[in-house]
C-alpha cells in the first residue's frame, strides 16, 4: 500500500495506567469519529490494529489496543501515527474538496500570474488560508469562497480572484 492511499488521522501520545491503555490524539473533526473507520493502520509497518474507546481525558482519548495488556506493551505504541485508507473517507460534493488533495497544486490568478505552489492549509481564526511557496519564500493567501475562483484537478491548478500585488511587501 502506497503512502498516498493512506491518510493520517491520529497519533498515540502516551500511555495510561497499567492495563495497556494508551492516550490517543485524534485529528478528525469529531475526535471520536476515528473509531468509525473500519481499518486503522500503524505508521511503522502498515499493520492493521483494532482500537476501542475507553474514556476521554482533556483533549485526548483513552483507548485500548487489541492484544495489548500491559503498560510495557503499550509503551511500544507511543508516538506512532495512525492512518486510514483514502477510500474510507466520505465522498465529497461538487463544491467541496479535501485539503490534502490540493497540496502541491499551483496557484494562479485570473491573469495567469503565478502565486506559487500550495504547501499547507491553515486557519488562524479568520478564514481558511493557504501557504504557498514561491522562489524559496512562503506567503499566506486567502482561500475563502470570495477568493476561490476554480480548482482544476487535471492541470493541478487553483485559480484565485486576487491581485499579484498582494505578495509585495
Amino acid at each position, binding site marked *: 500500500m502506497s503512502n498516498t492511499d493512506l491518510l493520517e488521522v491520529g497519533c498515540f501520545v502516551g500511555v495510561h495506567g497499567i492495563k495497556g491503555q494508551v492516550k490517543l490524539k485524534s485529528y478528525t473533526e469529531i475526535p471520536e469519529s476515528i473509531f468509525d473507520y473500519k481499518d486503522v493502520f500503524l505508521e511503522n509497518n502498515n499493520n492493521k490494529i483494532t482500537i476501542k474507546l475507553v474514556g476521554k481525558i482533556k483533549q485526548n482519548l483513552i483507548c485500548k489496543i487489541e492484544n495489548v495488556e500491559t503498560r510495557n506493551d503499550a509503551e511500544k505504541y507511543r508516538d506512532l501515527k495512525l492512518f486510514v485508507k483514502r477510500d474510507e473517507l466520505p465522498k465529497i460534493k461538487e463544491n467541496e474538496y479535501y485539503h490534502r488533495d490540493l497540496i502541491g497544486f499551483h496557484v494562479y490568478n485570473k491573469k495567469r500570474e503565478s502565486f506559487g505552489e500550495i504547501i499547507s492549509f491553515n486557519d488562524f481564526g*479568520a478564514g481558511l488560508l493557504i501557504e504557498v511557496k514561491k522562489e524559496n519564500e512562503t506567503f*499566506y493567501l486567502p482561500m475563502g469562497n470570495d477568493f476561490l475562483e476554480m480548482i482544476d484537478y487535471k492541470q493541478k491548478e487553483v485559480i484565485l480572484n486576487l491581485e499579484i500585488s498582494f505578495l509585495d511587501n
Partner: protein
Amino acid sequence: MSRSIWKGPFVDGYLLKKADVARESGRNDVIKTWSRRSTVMPQFVGLTFGVHNGKKFIPVTISEAMVGHKLGEFSPTRTFYGHTADKKSKR
C-alpha cells in the same frame, strides 16, 4: 462606566478611510495594514485585511463574530514547532 467603555473602541483613522474606499468599490481587494492594534468595527464585516505579523501579511477575512476583537489577534507572530520534551520522547 469603566474607563475603556467610556473611551470607546480604538481604530487607526487611515484604516477606517481605507475600509470605506474598499467597501464602496465593491471589489474584494486585500487591505494591507500594520495596525494590529485597531479594533474590528461592524463596518469591516466582509472585508479582507492583510495584517502584518512582523514578517508577512496574514489575510484576515472579517466576520460578525470578530467585531470587538483587535486585528492582531488573528495574525499570529510566532511559529510553534513543538515542545522540547516531545522531541526527546521520539528518540
